[in-house]
Each structure stands twice: as C-alpha cells, then as structure tokens.
C-alpha cells in the first residue's frame, strides 16, 4: 500500500505499524517527532498506530538553524 511520507508517495507493507516503520528507517525515537494525518502524536501513542492506505505522515527532527 501507499502512504504519503514527508510529502512523497511511499510504498510500505500492508498493515505495518508506525513503530515498525520507524525502526525500519533506523531512526532514534527520542530525536524525532511525528505528525499523523495532521495530528501530532506523543511518543507513547506510536505503538498503537497501524498505518492505512493514503495515510499522511510527517517525520521531523531538529537541524541547525538560527
């Protein structure tokens, strides 16, 4: 199935959980924040999210800035 991940159409396994996706991308959970279909998720909510077709996911982190 396809989701929109950071603005890009991205293919992921059917029924993948958010936690699995994060792990597969090799991300450190404490360094990222996730917006799921325009709502901000708290870290403890990630576990319960199973992705569906056409979900919109934004995964962000801090970068250098002034």
């Amino acid at each position, binding site marked *: 199935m396809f989701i929109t*991940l*950071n*603005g890009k159409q991205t293919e992921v396994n059917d029924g993948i959980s958010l936690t699995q996706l994060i792990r597969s*991308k090799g*991300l*450190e959970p*404490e*360094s*990222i*924040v996730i*917006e799921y279909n325009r709502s*901000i*998720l*708290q*870290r403890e909510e990630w576990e319960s999210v199973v992705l569906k077709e056409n979900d919109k996911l*934004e*995964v*962000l*982190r*801090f*970068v*250098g*800035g*002034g």
Partner: protein
Amino acid sequence: MDDKLIIGDREITSRLFIGTGKFPANRIIPDVVRMSGAQVVTVALRRIDFDSDDENMLKYIPKDCILMPNTSGARNAEEAVRIARLARALGCGNFIKIEVISDNRYLLPDNMETVRATEILAREGFTVLPYMSPDLMDARRLKDAGAAAVMPLGAPIGTNKGLKTREMIKILIDEIDIPVIVDAGIGKPSDACEAMELGAAAVLVNTAIATAGDPAVMAEAFAKAVIAGRKAFLSGMGPVKEYAEASSPLTGFLA
C-alpha cells in the same frame, strides 16, 4: 554586580544566544557552544530526508543548554503554531522563537502574523520570543499578546551588516519593559557590543560565528564583546560632547 536575565521561568546565565545553522560541520558545534558560553541555542525543525544520512542535531548541543527551536519555514501564524507544537512534542522545553516570513529577498518578518502566533502560543504555555521588525506599536502588541521578550532585527538575516536599525531598537529598549534581544544582522563582535551598550538584554548571533574562518574563536570574541557591552551599559556611559574638554588640568602649566 547582580545582573540577572530572566526569560519566562528561566534565569539565563549568558546574554549571547547562538544559532546552529550554516556551520561547516556539526561536529564543531559543541566547541562553539562552549567557547561562546551561550546557554540559549536555536535550532530549526525539518522533515527527515530518508535518502541522505542526516544527523541528529541534538547530540551536538550540550544537555544543559536551553533549546530554542524556531518556526522558520512558517509563512503565516497557523504554520508557525503548527511548527511550535511539533517542536514542543520533541520534548525539549517550552522556549520558541517565532519567525514568520513571507518575503524571500530580505527575509523580513511579518509582524502582524507574528503577533497572532504569539497570542496563541503564549496561551498554550510556550515561552515565546518573537523575531520582529523593530516597530514600537508592534512590540507593544507582542508584549500584550504574552511575548516573554521581543527580538528585533539589526539588519536582514545573514547579511552581517550590523545595527542598521539602531535608532528603532533604541526606542524599543527605552519603551518596552520586557527584554529586547537583537536578532539577525549582527556581523562582528563590535556590533554585538554596540547593541549591548544601547541596553539590549541579549543578542542572538548565528551567521557571523558559523561562517567565520575559526568559528570557535569567533564565538569567544562575541562572548567577550557581549560582556563588555553589558558592563558599559550598566556602568553608565559618559556624555557625548560637541567640543573638546581637556582631560588634564588647564592650570599649573610650566611657564
């Protein structure tokens, strides 16, 4: 001399705030932070690029710093609020630098949208430090909206032109009773010193340090300039006069 800077519920130990953009390599940032003595450090929030190995910025910023994410990329109040809430969900405190910019050439802030964003975020418990064009009425609006400080620009971001808005900043310092922090345009330590001599509560410097030949040494130079300017302001500077006034006695000359 007791000279505390309080912003929100935090006592700030250094009046030099630094940004973390444009450094030639992130690994030099810990050294720069240490040499600058800065406690408040800004960062930006961006999408992760899954096709590149971008790094976790947080590992370069000492844990005892106050992180001040900015809302760069926001073109209106709603976008700034969205970015601020996301930044807070990362769990690094309540400080937020509001930056709302829709002008791509000079990157001048939109004061009206900034006031709107400040009102919303202050109500949500953020410690709001808005980047603004130095206008007295807008600074009052920001204060009334709950800003913890105002951050007028000295010159457009990244230009290193110095305190081009000096007279307007002076008016804010005289009239606004929350900290006035000069942000943007400060190009060299003497500019930072000048802002502090005027009575600014602090300065925020990024480009001038990040693009210096030796950023860590430049950070130290800025730290000293900020301390010098602050001490000069607190000590009460002597008056400027039109005509000469001898410093040596005008009597008892050799005949």
